[in-house]
Every structure is written in C-alpha cells, then in structure tokens.
C-alpha cells in the first residue's frame, strides 16, 4: 500500500441522485496497469475523471504520494496524460497543429517529435491535413499520437480503443505494456479484452464493486 | 392614534387605495413565502411515505 503513487481513499461518487460507487479503495503504483470495467452507467468514466482531478468526489479523496490531489494540482497535472472520450482535437486544425498545441499545454514538443509520433500511429503524410477530413479512426489516432511524444508517467485513458482497426489495437496494447514496463502507469476503460497485457495487469469491476 | 374615526383611517386622506393595496400585496407575498415551503414539505413527506409503503410491500 505504501508504495502506491496514486490511490483513492473511501471514494464515493454520486451522479444525478444516483450512487455510482462508494467505499472504493484503488491504488496504482509504478509499472501498474489498471483496467476499469463494468456495465454501462456503472461509473467507469466518472472514476477516471475523479482520478484526473476533473471532478470532485462526493466523499473520500484521491491521493498522490499520500497527499490529496486538490492540494497539489501541479504534482498531478505535470505527471498526467488524460485522454477523454473526446481528445481535444480541433477539426479545423491540422494534425500537426493539434499535437503541437496539446503538447505545449504540457511539456512542449518539437516539430520533429510530433512528426515522429504521427508516423508511429500510421499517419505519416497526413501532418498538414485538417483533422475534420480524416476518418473517425484516424482522428482517434491523432489523439493517441500524444502517447508517442515525450509523455508523462501516468496515463488515464477513457476508451482508447474505440474506432481503431485490429492492427492499431494490437500496436496500442503493446505500447501501453511497454510504457508500464518502463515504470509508467496506465489506467484505462475498455470493453475489449486485452491480448497483450503486462504482468502487472489488474482489472477493477465496478459492476461488482457496488453490488 | 392619528385618525379621528375608522372611516378616516380607511380613507388615509385620499391615499387609501394606494396604502391599503400595497400593504395587501406585500402581506400576500409574505404569506406566499411561508406557504410555498410548507406545501413543498408536505409534498415531500407524502412522496416519501408513498415510497416507504411501496418498499415495505416488496
């Protein structure tokens, strides 16, 4: 317990008069990969948003190294990569412009790094194409290209596999596992069973946690 | 007492309509402010009672 980087203490979440979960204790330490699963409406996305500090819990708290994230926002935000349902990609901007801006919000990246990342997700040649002309899967990849930039340690990903083809799914799985093996942390939701999970893989079923 | 008779009191020196209407409207609004939360409370308790009965039957 003590070596946990990110942990929740007695976390409860209530949405629109409905209790999604309560008394939730989760801990994530370096090299961990945690898949949050459960039926629709069981609070997967809410839990991820709580961990990312986007929402305030009804009761309980989220801690980093034992201190509440709301008291040390900088510690959280400078180590966090958050990819929500919508990844913050602007249709009117090109793939390169989008990535340059999103990385500038964190540590910044050079043009070469962005091009390398776009090539890594199979979008070489699409750098200066406005994103609204790309397909849904390609747009998703633009968001995921951030995982190939000089990325922070903690990744919180909401449904990263949607709209991806089989080959891209495998590639992303391997990339997530590699990140964990290098001491990173991944928390994600997905409906699809992971084929290439690292040894530290764990699953948290919210559907059962509340029952 | 500033008025010699009750009818004088009601007339308010030709301003009776204005004085009494504003007092009437104001007191009506004050009463409404008391009545609304009381009614909301009754409604809530009734709903809760119905819910409890329903749960007891199950």
């Amino acid at each position, binding site marked *: 317990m003590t070596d946990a980087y990110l942990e929740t203490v007695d976390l409860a979440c209530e949405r629109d008069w409905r209790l999604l979960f309560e008394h939730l204790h989760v801990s994530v330490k370096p090299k961990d990969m945690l898949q949050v699963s459960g039926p629709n409406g069981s609070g997967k996305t809410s839990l991820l948003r709580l961990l990312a500090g986007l929402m305030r819990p009804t009761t309980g708290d989220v801690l980093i190294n034992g201190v509440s994230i709301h008291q040390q926002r900088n510690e959280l935000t400078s180590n966090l990569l958050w990819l929500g349902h919508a990844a913050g990609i602007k249709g009117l901007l090109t793939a390169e412009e989008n990535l340059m801006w999103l990385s500038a919000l964190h540590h910044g990246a050079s043009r070469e790094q962005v091009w390398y990342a776009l090539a890594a997700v199979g979008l070489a040649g699409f750098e200066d194409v406005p994103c609204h002309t790309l397909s849904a899967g390609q747009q998703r990849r633009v968001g995921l290209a951030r995982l190939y930039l000089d990325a922070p340690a903690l990744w919180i990903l909401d449904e990263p596999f949607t709209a991806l083809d089989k080959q891209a799914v495998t590639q992303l799985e391997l990339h997530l596992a590699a990140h964990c093996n290098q001491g990173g942390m991944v928390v994600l939701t997905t409906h699809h069973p992971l084929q290439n999970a690292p040894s530290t893989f764990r699953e948290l079923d919210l559907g059962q946690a509340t029952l | 007492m500033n008025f010699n008779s009750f009818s004088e009191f009601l007339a*308010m020196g030709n301003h009776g309509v204005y004085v009494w209407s*504003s007092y009437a409207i104001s007191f009506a609004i004050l009463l409404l402010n008391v009545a609304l939360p009381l009614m909301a409370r009754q409604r809530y308790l009734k709903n809760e009672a119905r819910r*409890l009965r329903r749960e007891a039957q199950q």
Partner: protein
Amino acid sequence: MNWTWFHKLGSPKWFYEISGRWLPWLSVSAVLLIVVGAVMGLAYAPPDYQQGNSFRIIYIHVPAAFLAQSTYISLAIAGVVGLVWKMKIADVAVQQAAPIGAWMTVIALVTGAVWGKPTWGAWWVWDARLTAMLILLFLYFGIIALGHAISNRESSAKACAILAIVGVVNIPIIKYSVDWWNTLHQPATFTITEKPAMPMEMWLPLLIMTIGFYCFFAAVLLMRMRLEVLRRESRTRWAQAEVARQIGRSA
C-alpha cells in the same frame, strides 16, 4: 479563536437540530414585530407634511428593499464560504435564499410603484433607486434560473455562488452608474426614502418593521433549508429517521 463551532455548523445534522430549536422563536418574533410595526406605522405615526398618508408605504418598502439588498450580499458571502471551506450548508443557503430575496425585491418594486402614483403621478418613474431595484431583481432571476438549469446539485450550487460573487462586485458599480445616469437625465424630484429629520414616532415603526422582516427572512430561510437538507441527506440514517417521525406525526 476556537473554530469548532464553525465546522460544526457545516454538519447538516447539527444544523437541522439547532435550526429546529430556533425556528419557533424566529417565527413568533417575526409575526409579532411585523404586526406591531404595521399597526404603529398605519395608525399611530403622524402623516408626512409633504406626502400625506401615502408615505406609510415606506414601512413596507424600506424594510423589503433593505432585506432584498442584504440578501444578495449574504448570497455572495454564503457562496464564498461554500467555495472556500466546502461547507455544504452554505451551498444550501445560497440556493434557498435567492427566491426569498427575489420576492422581497418584488415587494419593494411594487410598493415603490404604488407609492409613485400619488407622488409623481405615474406608476413607474425611472428613479435611480427603483431602477437599481429592478436590476437587482434581474440579478436574482439570473441566479435562480442558473440554479434550475444545472441538474447536478453540487455544480449548480457552485455556479450560483460564482454568479452571486460576480454580481456583488457589480452592485456598487451598478449603484454608482445608475445614480450618475439619473443626474445626467433630469432626476425625479424626490425619492421614497428621502426624509428630512424624522420624528421618533415615524422611525420607530420603521425600525420594528425592519427587524421583523429580518426575522421573517431568517424563519423562511430556515424552513426552506431544513427541507432541502432532508432531501440531500435522504441517504443518511438520521434523515430517514426524521422523515419517518414527520410522516408518523402528520398521518
């Protein structure tokens, strides 16, 4: 200084208990003070030498206007307390006080307009104070509408708190600019609260009425807050027990 009372006040259960003890006293004193004040103001205060008996409207108008303004300020204070110290009771207070404040503004506006008819000869004159009151009513509408529009009650309380704080910063600016606007375009000759040295028989009822209105506000606010606290805490055991007790009593 000992702050435990402050944090205790934040506990809904404690609030519910203590407010239950205060409520009867507040209600009784509100009724007594308002009745005594109204009788004194209507029957015993001498008529104004300029306005005659229509000035008796101020015994309603001034306390209501006073209360309307201070309610808005207290909204912002409760908002700050709720945002900074995360006190749940303050969140409840923000949303429950706003409608009462809006109703007080309506009273002030209606009585001001009725008073204007015999005094200025028109139901509505763009007098600085009445205009400022009208703007205050719009500010209240904004808070109430925002509170109803956001379904998540915690977000809605926080959003209302922010709007109230922004509004409170604006109130002195609005007052200044409306006064200036009024002098720029010939002002109304005299206003409802403008009084040359009032004799004691005239201002005593005003004082009693004002205190009575404050008690009334406190009593209604507590009533509304108690219901809202019961709703919000419906998952806790004490609230369920309280609801069961109330149902048993009313059945």
